[in-house]
C-alpha cells in the first residue's frame, strides 16, 4: 500500500517541488529530480519484489461515480520496474544533456510527471485506471515533445496528440463495450470476457488493438513516432523507445491476456491474423529504418520494428512466446536506450546526426561508439547479449504455436538489423579522426556514464539470464 | 354542414389577406408596404370579429395601428426604398 503510493506519487511530488524551486538553482534542481526518480525506482522495485513473491497490493477508489483501482500483477510490476529503473538513468543523462538547453524547469517537471503517469499505467488494476493514466501520460509527455518550440516540434506535437487521443477514444469505446458485455472491468479476477461468446468480439479486439496500437506504433498507426523525434534525446530515448510506447504495448498485453484471455483469443479469427500484422511491422519497420539517414529517425523506425517483437510474442498465445516477449521488453529497452544515448552524445559532441557521415567518429568518441557497437550487436541478437535469449524464446513461442514462418521472420529481421547498424559502427572506425569536442570535460560523464552502465547491464543479463528469470516466470505463471 | 354566407365573407377576407401579404412581398416602396400592412391588420381584426372573438379584434386593431405607426415613423427616419 505504502510502497504503491510512494512509487506512484514520487513523480508528481517531485514535479511540484521542481516547479516551485527558483529558476537559478540548477544543482538543487538536479538533486531533487534525482531524489524523486530514485524514490520512484526503489519503491517500484519493492512493489515488484512483493508481487513476484505472490503478495498482493491494491487500492480501490470511488471517484466520479466510477471505480478506479490500482492493483499491480506481475506483468504490471515488471513494466513498472523496467520503466522506473531506466528513468533514473535517463535523469542522470538529462543532467548532462540539458546543460546548454533552455527551460530546464519545465523539462524536469514534466519528466517527473511522466514517471508518475507511466507507473500509474503499470500499476492500474482495472481498465478505467489504465485509461486515465494512459491519457495522463499523453498529456504529460506532450510538453516534452514540443520542448524545442520550433515549428517542426509543434507540428510533431500536434501529430502526437491527435494520434494518441484518437487511440484513447477508441480505447474508451472499447472499455465501455467490455463493461456492457461483461459487467466488470478489473483485471484481478481472471480474463474479463472469458464467458462472453457473442458476435462483435472481433470488433472489440480491433478497437482495443487499434487504440493501444497507436502508442505501440503498430503499422500503419506509427506515423507520430518518427515525427516525435524532434524531442530532446533523453526524451526520445526514454519515452519514445520505452515508457510511452511500452504503455501501448503493455495495454495490448493486458487486452490479450487480461481482457480476452488466451482461450477466447484462440477462438477469434482476428487474433489469428494479429501475429502477421506484427510480423509485417517488424519487417517493414526495419527495412524503412535502413533507408533513413538521420540517426534518430533510423532509431525511431527501428523502435517500431522492435516493439512488434514483443507484440508478436504476445500474440502467439504460448508460454514461451509470452516469456520471450517479457524478456524482450527488458533487454530491448536497455539496448535501445543505450543506442539513443549514444546518438545524443554523437549529436552533442561531434555535431553529427547523419549516418552517412559517421566516418572517424569512432576514433574521436571511442567509448560511445563501443557502447553503440555493443547495442547494435544486441539488436542483431548476438550471443553474449540479452536479446539473444529473448529472440530465442520468441522463436520457440512461434514454433510452439505451429507457425514456423514467424521464427523465419525473426531471423530475417535479425539479418536486416545487422545491415541497419553494423556498417555504421564499422564506418565510424575508418578514415580520419572526426572533428569533435571529445569525450572528456564538462557534462560528458553525466551522459556517458549511464550509457556505459546500461550497455554493461545488457551484457550482464546476456551472460546471466537467470537474474531476470524469476520476474519473467512470475508473469508467465500468472497467465498460464 | 354546408357553408353559410358568413363563411363566404370570411373566405373573401382571408383572400384579401393573402393578396395583401403578396403585395407586401412585392412592393418596393417600404412606406407603401407598411400602409398595406395597416390594411392587413384591419382586415385581420374584422376576421377576428367574424370568428366571435371581439377581444382579439380590439387588440389586433390597436396593436396593428400601433405597429404601423411605429414602422412608419422608423421608415421616415431611415430609408424608404428597398434596395
Amino acid at each position, binding site marked *: 500500500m505504502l510502497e504503491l503510493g510512494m512509487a506512484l506519487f514520487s513523480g508528481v511530488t517531485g514535479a511540484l517541488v521542481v516547479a516551485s524551486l527558483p529558476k537559478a538553482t540548477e544543482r538543487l534542481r538536479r538533486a531533487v529530480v534525482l531524489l524523486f526518480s530514485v524514490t520512484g525506482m526503489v519503491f517500484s522495485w519493492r512493489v515488484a519484489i512483493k508481487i513476484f513473491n505472490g503478495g498482493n497490493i491494491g487500492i480501490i477508489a470511488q471517484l466520479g461515480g466510477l471505480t478506479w483501482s490500482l492493483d499491480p500483477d506481475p506483468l504490471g510490476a515488471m513494466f513498472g520496474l523496467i520503466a522506473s529503473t531506466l528513468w533514473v538513468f535517463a535523469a542522470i543523462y538529462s543532467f548532462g544533456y540539458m546543460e546548454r538547453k533552455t527551460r530546464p524547469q519545465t523539462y524536469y517537471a514534466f519528466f517527473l510527471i511522466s514517471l508518475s503517469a507511466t507507473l500509474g499505467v503499470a500499476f492500474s488494476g482495472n481498465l478505467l485506471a489504465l485509461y486515465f493514466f494512459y491519457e495522463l501520460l499523453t498529456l504529460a509527455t506532450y510538453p516534452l515533445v514540443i520542448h524545442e518550440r520550433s515549428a517542426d516540434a509543434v507540428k510533431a506535437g500536434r501529430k502526437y496528440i491527435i494520434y494518441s487521443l484518437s487511440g484513447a477514444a477508441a480505447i474508451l469505446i472499447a472499455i465501455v463495450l467490455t463493461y456492457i458485455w461483461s459487467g466488470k472491468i478489473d483485471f484481478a479476477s481472471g480474463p474479463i470476457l472469458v464467458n462472453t461468446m457473442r458476435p462483435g468480439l472481433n470488433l472489440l479486439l480491433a478497437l482495443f488493438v487499434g487504440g493501444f496500437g497507436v502508442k505501440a506504433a503498430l503499422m500503419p498507426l506509427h506515423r507520430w513516432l518518427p515525427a516525435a523525434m524532434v524531442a530532446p534525446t533523453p526524451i526520445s530515448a526514454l519515452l519514445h523507445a520505452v515508457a510511452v510506447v511500452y504503455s501501448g504495448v503493455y495495454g495490448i498485453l493486458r487486452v490479450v491476456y487480461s481482457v480476452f484471455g488466451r482461450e477466447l483469443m484462440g477462438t477469434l479469427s482476428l487474433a489469428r491474423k494479429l501475429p502477421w500484422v506484427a510480423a509485417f511491422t517488424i519487417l517493414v519497420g526495419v527495412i524503412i529504418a535502413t533507408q533513413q539517414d538521420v540517426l534518430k529517425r533510423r532509431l525511431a523506425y527501428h523502435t517500431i520494428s522492435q516493439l512488434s517483437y514483443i507484440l508478436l510474442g504476445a500474440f502467439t498465445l504460448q508460454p514461451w512466446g509470452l516469456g520471450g516477449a517479457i524478456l524482450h521488453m527488458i533487454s530491448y529497452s536497455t539496448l535501445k536506450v543505450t543506442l539513443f544515448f549514444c546518438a545524443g552524445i554523437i549529436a552533442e559532441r561531434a555535431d553529427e546526426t547523419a549516418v552517412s557521415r559517421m566516418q572517424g567518429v569512432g576514433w574521436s568518441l571511442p567509448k560511445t561508439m563501443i557502447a553503440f557497437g555493443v547495442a547494435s550487436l544486441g539488436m542483431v541478437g548476438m550471443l553474449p547479449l540479452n536479446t539473444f535469449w529473448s529472440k530465442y524464446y520468441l522463436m520457440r513461442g512461434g514454433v510452439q504455436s505451429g507457425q514456423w514462418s514467424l521464427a523465419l521472420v525473426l531471423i530475417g529481421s535479425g539479418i536486416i538489423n545487422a545491415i541497419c547498424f553494423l556498417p555504421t559502427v564499422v564506418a565510424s572506425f575508418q578514415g580520419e579522426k572526426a572533428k569533435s569536442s571529445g569525450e572528456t570535460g564538462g557534462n560528458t560523464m553525466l551522459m556517458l556514464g549511464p550509457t556505459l552502465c546500461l550497455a554493461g547491464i545488457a551484457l550482464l543479463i546476456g551472460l546471466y539470464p537467470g537474474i531476470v528469470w524469476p520476474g519473467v516466470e512470475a508473469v508467465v505463471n500468472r497467465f498460464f | 354542414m354546408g357553408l353559410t354566407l358568413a363563411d363566404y365573407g370570411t373566405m373573401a377576407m*382571408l383572400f384579401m389577406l393573402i393578396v395583401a401579404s403578396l403585395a*407586401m412581398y412585392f412592393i418596393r416602396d417600404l412606406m407603401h408596404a407598411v400602409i398595406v400592412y395597416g390594411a*392587413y391588420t384591419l382586415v385581420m381584426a374584422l376576421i377576428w370579429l367574424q370568428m366571435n372573438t371581439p377581444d382579439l379584434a380590439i387588440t389586433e386593431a390597436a396593436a396593428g395601428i400601433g405597429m404601423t405607426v411605429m*414602422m412608419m415613423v422608423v421608415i421616415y427616419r431611415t430609408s424608404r426604398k*428597398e*434596395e
Partner: protein
Amino acid sequence: MKILLGKVLINYPYFAAVILFAIGSATVLTRSNLFKKLIGINIMESAIFLMFIAAGSRRDGVVPILHMDDSLRPYINPLPSALMLTGIVVSVSVTAFALALIVRLYRFYGTTDAKRMSDIRNGVAKE
C-alpha cells in the same frame, strides 16, 4: 375528389393560415430588407394566430359572454383567444425591439438592407 374538396372548403381557415405562413416565411427568408423581414415575421405570426383561433371557434357558436336570454347556445372556446392576446402583445414587443435595432443599424450603415450591410462590413466598395 368531391369529399376532399369538401374537406378543404370546410377547413378553409387552416388552409389560409398555411398559405399566409408560407408567404410570411418566404418574406423573412428571401427579402434582404430588414423592414420586409419584420413584416414577414408579423404575417407569419398572424397566420399562426389564425390557426389557433380557427381551432377554437365553432360555426354556430357565440361570443363567450354570459347573456341572460340565450345561455344555452354553444359558445366558442375562449381559451385560444385569450392566449392569442398574449401572442399579439409579444409580437408587438418583438416588432418594437426590432425597430429599435433597425434604427441603430441605420445609424451605422446608412442603409436598412442586410446584404448591403454585410457588403459594407466585408469592405466591398459601394457600387
